[in-house]
Structure formats: C-alpha cells, structure tokens
C-alpha cells in the first residue's frame, strides 16, 4: 500500500497540495485510479438491483396507503369507497378536461360523509379561466355521482373549491382538441 504524506483539509474542505508525486495527501496513481473507479461506479447498475426490480415492482403494486372510508349510496344500498379511489377518479376526470391538469386533491370528510373537496389545478395558457372552472366543476360533480352515487349531491357548490394555482403551455393534444 502506498504511503503518503499526512495533510489536512483547508477551510473550504479542499485538500492542500502536497507536491511531489502526491496531491492532497493522495498518491497520483491512487488518485487517478480512484477517479476511474468513481466514474465507473457512477454509471454502474448492480446485478442485485436488476434481479430485485421485478420483485420490487410486485411489492409496489400491492402496497396500500392509509385510507379513509367515504360513504356512498345508491338508493337504499350503502357502500364505502377509499378516499384514495375518490382522488384517483377525480384526477382522471379533471385531466380529461382539455387544458386542465390536476395538481392536488384534498378530500374533506365528516365521519364517512364527503363534505368538501379542494382541487388545485393548472390550466393551459390562454384558457378562459372562469368558463373553464365551470367545466371542471361539472366534470367533478359527474365523477362524484358515478363514484359515490347519491351522497355526491350533498356536496354543494361551495363544497367544491377549485384553485387555479398554475398555468402551463398547452401540449399537442390540447391544441388539437381546442382546434
């Protein structure tokens, strides 16, 4: 093993140059080899990960989140839906409105009853915001009625808050849909 001079880091943390055949307490040969090894490791993917990926994916597919139960009903039948399922359904419904992207969805419950929704959305640049917010609200109501049935009607218009928190450049699909 190569012996090198002992050096201390400077105030900035950079090693002092010791001169001779070493730099910062490192032999030049060692420093060069370390640099090559470092570069190699940066682009390296362990075999262990390659074989673990499929098992990881399987575990992720079955992983569940902590959820709250949201009551739904159809006539006299009562059922419960996870708030995550409600959020996923709403995200899809909002994203299907041309020029709109759901950014965050917060579901408010009183016990198991849905009492409010807060949606943060981004709208495509140039979209008439007020008119578009109405379209989004309709899409949300339709979605809630499909997922939760009758209780959705109890969420009044003030219970659905739509916050336009960002604008984005319209994508190709949005331009095509608009035209």
């Amino acid at each position, binding site marked *: *093993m*190569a012996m*090198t001079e002992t*050096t201390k*880091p400077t105030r900035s*943390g950079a*090693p002092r140059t010791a001169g001779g055949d070493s730099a*910062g*307490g*490192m*032999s030049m*040969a*060692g*420093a060069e*080899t*370390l640099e*090559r*090894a*470092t570069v*190699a*490791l*940066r*682009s*390296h*993917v*362990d*075999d*262990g*990960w*390659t074989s*673990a*990926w499929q*098992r*990881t*994916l399987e*575990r*992720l*597919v079955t*992983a*569940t*989140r*902590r959820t709250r139960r949201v009551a739904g009903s159809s006539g006299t039948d009562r059922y419960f839906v996870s708030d*995550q*399922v409600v*959020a*996923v359904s709403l*995200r899809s419904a909002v994203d299907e409105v041309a020029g709109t992207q*759901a*950014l*965050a*969805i917060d579901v408010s419950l009183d016990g198991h009853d849905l009492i409010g929704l807060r949606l943060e959305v981004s709208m495509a640049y140039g979209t008439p915001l007020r008119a578009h917010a109405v379209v989004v609200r309709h899409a949300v109501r339709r979605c809630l009625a499909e997922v939760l049935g009758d209780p959705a009607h109890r969420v009044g218009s003030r219970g659905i808050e739509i916050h336009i928190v960002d604008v984005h450049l319209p994508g190709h699909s949005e331009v095509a849909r608009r035209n």
Partner: protein
Amino acid sequence: MRHDVMRDADDTVLARKAAMGDRDAFTVIAHRHGPAMYRFARRIVQDDGDAEDVVQDALVGAWRDLDQFRGAASLRTWLFRLTINRARTALRKRRPAPLGDRTAEPGVSAGTIGIAAAADPAQEAIRERLLAALDAALAGLPERSRIAWILREIDGLSYDEIVAVTGMTRNSIRGHVYRARRTLAQRLATWR
C-alpha cells in the same frame, strides 16, 4: 403504455401524480431512482438481500407518504433519506458488527457484481475488477465516511442535500468526504 408517456416527465410532475394515486407515475419514479437507491443501500448494508429489503421498504414508504412530500427537498434527496433511514434500521438489527473497523484488501470483491454492458469484453473485465477493488476499499471506510463520499462523489448531491439526507453537519460531511477520498486513493494506489 403510460410508462412510456411519463418516462420523460420531471420528478415534480411524477411526484404530484403519484401523490394523487397514480401508480404508473410512481413506477417511473421507482425505475428512475431505484438503481441509485440500491447502489447506495448495498454499500451501507453490504448485503444484496438486505439492500433489496431496504430499497423496497423505502419505496413502499415513499408511496404511502408521498402526499406529505411537498417538494421542499428534491424527490431524489427525499428518497435517499428514506433509504438511509431504512438502512440504519437494518444495521441496528444486526449489530454488533462495527463496519468502520473493518478493513479489506483491494482486489477482494465485496460483492461487486455485474457491470453495465461494455462493448469490449477485456475492458469490461478490467472495469469489473476496478469496481470490485473500489467496493472492497469502500467497505473498509467508517460508515459515515462511506455514506458522505457516495452521496457526494457518486450521486453528486450538494453538501446541503447531504445534510438533509444524513443529518450530519456541513463541516462534518466535508471532513468525511476528504478523508474518504484520501483513504480510497491510498487503498487503490497499488491496484493494477
């Protein structure tokens, strides 16, 4: 397939979608950051099976808590923090085995492992041996130095990001990185 559509989406967009329950978006996150998380975990716990458990636990934890991720740190930094927490838990379970006191000779494989395909088999073999030597040298470093060096030199995190991942102070990290560089260079000096 939706994965293909989202493959180029940035982390912020993917994290937002995943937080709203989009598993495809989270799969892209896992596919993008999993290799670095595994590489990091593997070199902390120094065991393939434990590294797999650590990364799986970290990713499942990330999936469950993504709605609490507000983007104050980068997604990558957050994932590394989850990884190191799980790795430390794994190490605590199997103490005592002071990693920092272990020494390893360059050239002795510490479990390295396959190499990304290279065009030239001879070059690939050299690269494989070089990585094995580096892994052996890394295994001999104190745990904190190893962690700081990997995050700084391999994953390119800033010192502030390493503070967020490890909880160490900035000065401590600088010292660990410096000492790790010097020790690794010394141990690799005789490598051929």
